[in-house]
């Protein structure tokens, strides 16, 4: 509600007494040694109070697996912060930033996957042996690959590549550090996706214990996985500046700073070799995936693991070998972004399926139907589908989606310069974190207050995706009370134990289960008190519409409020802190076999495009996005996630690409980095499929990431079908669609 009246407060809307402003001095080179930092001219500016360098970091300058709060010896990309200027006004801070003179000795930069792997390549991280990101290698082996190839009628080999994509949240990163010197305590307000990760990094940078740092989340203006490393580094800088100046310090990034410094979707290269029978069955698939990690890495070990499980798609392929690793480059870096490697994998995998169909002269829909993972099959990780195993709704999804869309291949060849094309993409998605990092666990606190209101606290955060509503609904439903009673304060790391990051669509599935558990415990307590009042066995009681009664004897009842009053009067606690954990999964990381994820979400997207072959312009006409959501808890919210997800995928397909030339970022603002506007959107229809999966709360599975992951692939396939020309690297922008290659990709301009 406050969001429509302009009264919602985002981090940049906050100010504190005596607050100072800071601005980061960014690197001028993609790769260079820092010889000297001269801050004297900056310090001459009257309003500038301090210039902070790595020497001022009281704790650890290295945080989050090798990121630096400020770079001291060398810069590894143009987004490295070298110093921080703190001033009484934002204008003075920026003036001070421009007045800091840094003397660099340029080094040869590593700009691409090929550069990184070249023998004798310069090292992005000099303390490492090569440019391969440690712990980023995963493999999955199933069946006998060579036998599969030998039995195949023909072999298809293809390479696909994806680009750096920006999250492009409309709110750039803002953090404010507010010190409390009475008790050596630091509060960070900010647009931060993962408060617990931020707390750990800020505490490390200050040399404090985590309990001395409190992260308070504000309304966050979109994150999609991105308000993480960059936001956290800035939180560290602001905290250090605040210690040094004894004042609150705000660091508010401009769009350009956010685009250059912040994480992006990892580019991947996919090398596939596939063995196929003439009847269309796929016998063997070998895939090699290389992620471009950029200058620093905090996520490739996780995105790559997910990729290793999903790279061969939702198909019944008996013989699989997948290898994946990531490399460092002196470029912007990859982080978490909605889908977490799956949009890249699905683009490549589903382009490949279409190319196989073309080789076979088979309808792409039929090829997918023929190979779809079905009951009785096993997943790439070996888990059984169907009876006694996990739900396998893909065959039905394919049939129902095609029927609802009225799928038919447009007749070829088409008259005129504007050609229509229809593209399909299927996908499956392991739910939650899975075996990515051990157990997947988080907590929830539910407290019934004396006035009957119910305060709920989750270890996970609402970043605009609607967790607040979902959690409130879960608690109201379990307790049989009105939704109006639920109060949901923003996440505060000092209240609840570390429940991990709000990522991987684990919000509802893991956070919701914890919330459901806590609500059930509170319900039990309410029923005990009600039992005392009604003189009935609490086990036999139920709550509905704020009244507690026994279904055997519904006349005898007591109101929720009377129970609350009695509980408070008699000193009984109506609160619970509950913890939900998936447990440590059984999984073999050598072979990729085992329980990768507790369950999967399945889906399919069909898209119709019109391509103007005289200009390369792609118009996306209509799309149908089908999702298995287990049980739909909030169909309206599901549609909202899918609409937004689809359009983000559409942007990845046709528009979005962070252009870099020699390591310098060229697309720094929305005039150069285009995202879809309201004029670009297709008619999107959503088909919700319920599979009765029992995994999430009330059987719900998440849709935040499935909503985006198949869209780009379906658009790319539709374009290829319309033009008869396959574009194997995203985005399918004007030049690539019209000319077949990108005009600026190899540019040299700065």
């Amino acid at each position, binding site marked *: 509600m406050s969001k429509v009246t*302009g009264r919602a407060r985002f981090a940049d809307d906050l100010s504190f007494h005596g607050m100072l402003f800071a601005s980061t001095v960014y690197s001028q080179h993609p790769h260079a040694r820092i010889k000297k930092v001269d801050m004297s001219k900056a310090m001459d500016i009257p309003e500038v109070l301090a210039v902070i360098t790595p020497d001022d970091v009281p704790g650890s300058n290295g945080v989050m697996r090798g990121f630096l709060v400020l770079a001291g010896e060398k810069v590894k990309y143009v987004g490295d912060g070298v110093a921080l200027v703190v001033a009484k006004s934002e204008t003075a801070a920026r003036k001070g930033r421009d007045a800091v003179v840094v003397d660099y000795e340029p080094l040869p930069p590593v700009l691409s996957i090929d550069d990184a792997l070249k023998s004798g390549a310069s090292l992005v991280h000099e303390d490492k042996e090569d440019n391969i990101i440690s712990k980023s290698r995963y493999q999955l082996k199933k069946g006998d690959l060579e036998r599969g190839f030998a039995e195949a009628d023909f072999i298809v080999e293809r390479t696909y590549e994806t680009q750096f994509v920006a999250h492009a949240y*409309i709110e750039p990163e803002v953090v404010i550090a507010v010190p409390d010197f009475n008790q050596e305590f630091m509060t960070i307000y900010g647009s931060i996706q993962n408060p617990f990760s931020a707390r750990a990094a800020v505490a490390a940078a200050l040399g404090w214990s985590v309990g001395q740092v409190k992260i308070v989340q504000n309304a966050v203006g979109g994150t999609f996985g991105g308000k993480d490393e960059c936001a956290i580094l800035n939180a560290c800088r602001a905290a250090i500046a605040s210690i040094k100046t004894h004042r609150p310090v705000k660091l508010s990034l401009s769009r350009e700073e956010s685009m250059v410094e912040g994480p992006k979707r990892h580019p991947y290269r996919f090398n596939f070799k596939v063995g196929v029978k003439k009847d269309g069955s796929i016998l063997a698939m070998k895939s090699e995936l290389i992620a471009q990690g950029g200058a620093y890495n905090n996520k490739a070990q996780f995105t790559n693991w997910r990729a290793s499980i999903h790279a061969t798609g939702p198909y019944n392929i008996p013989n699989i070998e997948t290898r994946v690793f990531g490399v460092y480059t002196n470029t912007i870096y990859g982080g978490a972004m909605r889908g977490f490697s799956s949009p890249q994998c699905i683009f490549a995998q589903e382009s490949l399926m279409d190319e196989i169909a073309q080789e076979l002269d088979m309808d792409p829909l039929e090829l997918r139907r023929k190979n779809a993972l079905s009951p009785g099959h096993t997943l790439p990780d070996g888990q059984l589908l169907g009876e006694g195993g996990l739900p396998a709704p893909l065959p039905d999804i394919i049939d129902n989606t095609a029927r609802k869309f009225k799928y038919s291949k447009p007749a070829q060849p088409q008259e005129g310069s504007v050609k229509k094309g229809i593209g399909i993409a299927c996908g499956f998605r392991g739910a939650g974190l899975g075996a990515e990092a051990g157990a997947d666990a988080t907590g929830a606190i539910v407290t019934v207050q004396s006035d009957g209101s119910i305060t709920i606290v989750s270890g996970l955060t609402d970043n605009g995706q609607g967790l607040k509503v979902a959690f409130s609904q879960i608690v109201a439903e379990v307790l049989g009370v009105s939704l109006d009673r639920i109060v949901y304060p923003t996440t505060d790391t000092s209240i609840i134990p570390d429940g991990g990051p709000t990522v991987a669509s684990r919000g509802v599935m893991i956070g919701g289960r914890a919330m459901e558990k806590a609500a059930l415990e509170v319900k039990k307590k309410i029923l005990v008190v009600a039992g005392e009042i009604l003189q009935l066995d609490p086990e036999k009681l139920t709550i509905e519409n704020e009244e507690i009664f026994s279904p055997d004897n519904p006349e005898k009842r007591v109101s929720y409020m009377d129970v609350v009053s009695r509980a408070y009067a008699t000193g009984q606690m109506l609160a619970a802190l509950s913890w939900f954990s998936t447990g440590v999964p059984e999984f073999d990381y050598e072979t990729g076999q085992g329980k990768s994820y507790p369950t999967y979400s399945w889906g399919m997207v069909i898209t119709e495009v019109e391509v103007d072959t005289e200009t390369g312009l792609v118009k996306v006409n209509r799309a149908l996005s089908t999702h298995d959501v287990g049980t739909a808890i909030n169909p309206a919210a599901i549609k909202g996630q899918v609409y937004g997800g689809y359009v983000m995928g559409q942007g990845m397909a046709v528009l979005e690409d962070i252009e870099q030339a020699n390591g310098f970022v060229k697309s720094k603002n929305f005039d150069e980095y285009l995202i879809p506007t309201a004029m670009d959107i297709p008619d999107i229809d959503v088909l919700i499929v319920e599979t009765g999966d029992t995994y999430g709360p009330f059987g719900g599975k998440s849709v935040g990431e499935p909503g985006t992951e198949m869209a780009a692939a379906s658009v790319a396939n539709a374009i290829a079908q319309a033009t008869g020309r396959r574009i194997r690297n995203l985005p399918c922008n004007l030049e690539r669609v019209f000319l077949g290659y990108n005009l600026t990709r190899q540019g040299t301009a700065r």
Partner: protein
Amino acid sequence: MVPITLQVNGQEVKAEIAIHERLLDFLRNELKLLGAKEGCGHGECGTCTVIMDGQVVNSCLILAVQAHGANITTIEGLGNTEELHPLQESFIEHGAVQCGYCTPGMILSAKNLLDKNPHPTRKEIQRSISGNLCRCTGYQKIVEAIEAVAEGRKGR
């Protein structure tokens, strides 16, 4: 410093401002009207949208001195906590708000459209908000929310 007088949300405002101060900063810093946000500083994203003399403008591209004598409406000028503007109500009802950062600008662009063209087509609605970027919603529910107001259906 230069003196300016303008109408903001129906009230007269007099101030002394720096000649280079942007209207966005004047609204946010001097008047504490925080509904208009900065998203890009280039007039590309539309989160700083306000209505100035019946035109939607990006307040990051307008100097405060240019607003001398002008009539400005910000999101704070629409509805209040007791009674929302029909567009505000419709945005909530249609789930057109996710993170909410673009919402004030979206609503103002929509209001300006409906003030001039009470019964727009879907295309006209899309065009009217094409200067307001949103990364969460995919725009569909925003368009539906505006359409509902245009068609006189505010309710569910």
